């Protein structure tokens, strides 16, 4: 190769570094407003009110987040309107939570709103789908003023992560909501939150049916629902005091356990043309808090432990039953019992109306508790 050719090639390669930088899709970090939190509710004129929170990382201004709220017909529509207010380009690739008002969730249509996140390759389908008891806009606005909490999206993110880990809230992200929403015989379930004076409280879970929110359960019931879904990792569970005697405290007390390794077994069958379901759950547990003198009159610790396990198992069974009966009453099937019938009893599934049959299905639940640790007190 001649020297001239080599010089020309070297110059070409060097200049390429300057001209081939791909400016079309360039995104200057300081010029982009990454939405971290979105609140969606219905406006008075029937449109959607979408509230966005984007962190301000560079400018030295009073607040460290940008709060934009606009009415519009779609997520994209309000994003464009937000771009007319914000000095930065509002983008949704880092959304951590999508908060829906309970009234909007009850009307339905969440799946259509969330479609935008699936369609847009840049959007984050790992954002939590959350229902707010009240207005998401008010919740976000108020949370900006919390003096002892981190930045709103981080606060809620940590709050949800922690409670999902503790099974007080279901881990429902956008992709999971859409998958369950499209699956015959499964209904989505989402975390439910509420604004309080000094913070945001996880109040349990919202139950859906036919794309609409049809009911809600508290955090204790959510633990059991998640266990019946076979998704429980670990949870604290409180039982109302049993065997209260005259000698004991007069105020209402509780017994606490940490449930772990919830193993579910589910059998389904058709008996006399009626769907019959048998759910068995086995929990391993640690006794966290009880009363003194757990060992009763017999003095036999083993016997007393077995008695306690039996009593708690009965209570758990009763609580599980209440949860499932409530879910049947409101017609929501987050466990996916219908999906099991679809898979295993095809003829029945094809000739039945599951939404109706589910309400009257014979569902039995049996919970067993095995206390493996008692701490350092008998």
């Amino acid at each position, binding site marked *: 190769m001649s020297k001239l050719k080599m010089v020309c090639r070297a110059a070409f390669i060097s200049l390429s570094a300057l001209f*081939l930088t*791909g400016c*079309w*899709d360039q995104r200057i970090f300081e010029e982009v407003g990454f939405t971290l939190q979105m609140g969606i509710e219905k406006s008075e004129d029937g449109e959607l009110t979408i509230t966005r929170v984007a962190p301000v990382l560079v400018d030295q201004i009073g607040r460290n987040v940008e709060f934009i709220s606009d009415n519009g017909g779609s997520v994209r529509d309000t994003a464009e309107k937000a771009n007319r207010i914000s000095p930065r380009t509002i983008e949704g690739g*880092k959304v951590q939570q999508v908060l829906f008002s309970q009234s909007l969730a009850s009307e339905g249509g969440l799946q259509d709103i969330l479609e935008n996140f*699936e369609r847009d*390759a*840049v959007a*984050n*389908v*790992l954002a939590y789908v959350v229902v707010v008891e009240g207005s998401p806009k008010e919740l976000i606005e108020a949370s900006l003023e919390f003096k002892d909490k981190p930045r709103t999206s981080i606060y809620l993110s940590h709050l949800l992560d922690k409670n999902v880990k503790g099974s007080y809230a279901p881990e429902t*992200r956008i*992709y999971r909501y*859409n*998958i369950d929403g*499209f*699956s*015959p015989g499964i209904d989505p379930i989402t975390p439910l939150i509420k604004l309080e004076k000094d913070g945001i409280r996880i109040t349990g879970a919202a139950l859906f049916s036919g794309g609409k929110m049809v009911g809600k359960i508290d955090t204790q019931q959510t633990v059991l629902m998640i266990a019946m879904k076979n998704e429980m990792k670990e949870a604290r569970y409180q039982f109302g005091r049993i065997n209260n005697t005259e000698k004991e405290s007069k105020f209402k007390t509780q017994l606490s356990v940490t449930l772990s390794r919830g193993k579910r077994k589910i059998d389904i069958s058709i008996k006399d043309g009626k769907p019959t379901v048998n759910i068995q759950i086995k929990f391993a547990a640690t006794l966290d808090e009880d009363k003194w003198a757990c060992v009763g009159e017999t003095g036999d610790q083993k016997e007393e432990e077995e008695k306690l396990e039996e009593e708690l198992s009965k209570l758990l069974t009763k609580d599980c039953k209440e949860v499932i009966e409530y879910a049947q009453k409101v017609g929501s099937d987050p466990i*996916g019992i219908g*999906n*099991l019938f*679809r*898979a*295993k009893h*095809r003829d029945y599934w094809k000739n039945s109306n599951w939404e109706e049959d589910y309400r009257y299905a014979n569902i039995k639940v049996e919970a067993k508790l095995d206390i493996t640790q008692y701490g350092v007190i008998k």
Partner: protein
Amino acid sequence: MSKDKNKITSKQLATLIISSQIGVGILTLPPVLAEKTGHDGWIAVLLSGIASLPVVVIIVILARRYKDKSLVKINYCLYGTYLGHILNFVFIIYLSAVTSLILRIFVEVIKINVLRVTPGEVITLFNFLPAIYMARYGFKAIARFANEVYLIVPIVLLYFFSITKEMRLTYLMPIGDAGIVPIMKGIFVALPMFLGIELIPLMYSKVKDNSKTLKYVILGHTYSTLFFTIVVAVSTLVYGETLLKIISFPLFLVFRIYKSTLFERVDLFFNAIWLPAMGTTSLVYYYSGFYSIKEMFQVKKERWPFVIYTAAIMLASRVPEDYAHTQKLLGLLGYLGMGMFVFLIFSTIFSFINKRGVAGK
């Protein structure tokens, strides 16, 4: 350029065939199969791979009978000069069209997932540059690069393993629910996935250890079949048939659902490893097309024909209006590919009647 730049081993031939198969079609196959066969798409792909195995054997038999001739020369021996010219011309058009359409799909996938604003023409040019560079060094260099498929597939499978808790086994049940006719239709829909085996007689004359070719090509075919089956099964296990029907690229979407504490967007890493796989698919067809031109026209000086051919491919890739149009054309080309299978089977039978040019005769 060295004289033996196209000399390859049987393993390399198998690698080239696998690379020509894995890359583009599998991105859109699961929803198409879900439409035809519901949740039994994986059965259709598996059966399709098994059904196409005899075609692989027959094609290798044809190539082995003319072991020192490429398909271009085989056509002249079997069908004479005039008909041979026509058949070779159709073959070259087919290879060029496949290259152009795959290149266009490649560009569209990049536009949808990564570079939305960058003009398609610019993406075309810069994505095709490595292919142009590598094509100058023949099948041997391309086969070496194509080895990446042995890295990409295990990474994808490892990822699938990590998202098992997102899968519902009930989504595949009851097995065989679609019925025989829809599954048969699914087999036909999945057959174009195995296009790439028609390139065997084109490259076979350049294989050094051709006694092992059948073994490696069958192994390669099994590799592709299993991979396609797993991808279709996993797409169904994650999304269920109802949602799967309305998703364009389930493989890309599946990579968006992993929650990693280390990487926020695992799908971007998937893009980074999958895009070269798509590039290799177009590269194999691209060079096969040019190699056929060289064989047909006895090209001695490659430079200008290569430049003209490359420019034609890139311009042709811009002809389809959009992604949907490209998919439609690629679907139509699939029928031509099926025609190639039929033609090669016919040629094998015909070679026992017209034995002109058969090795050892």
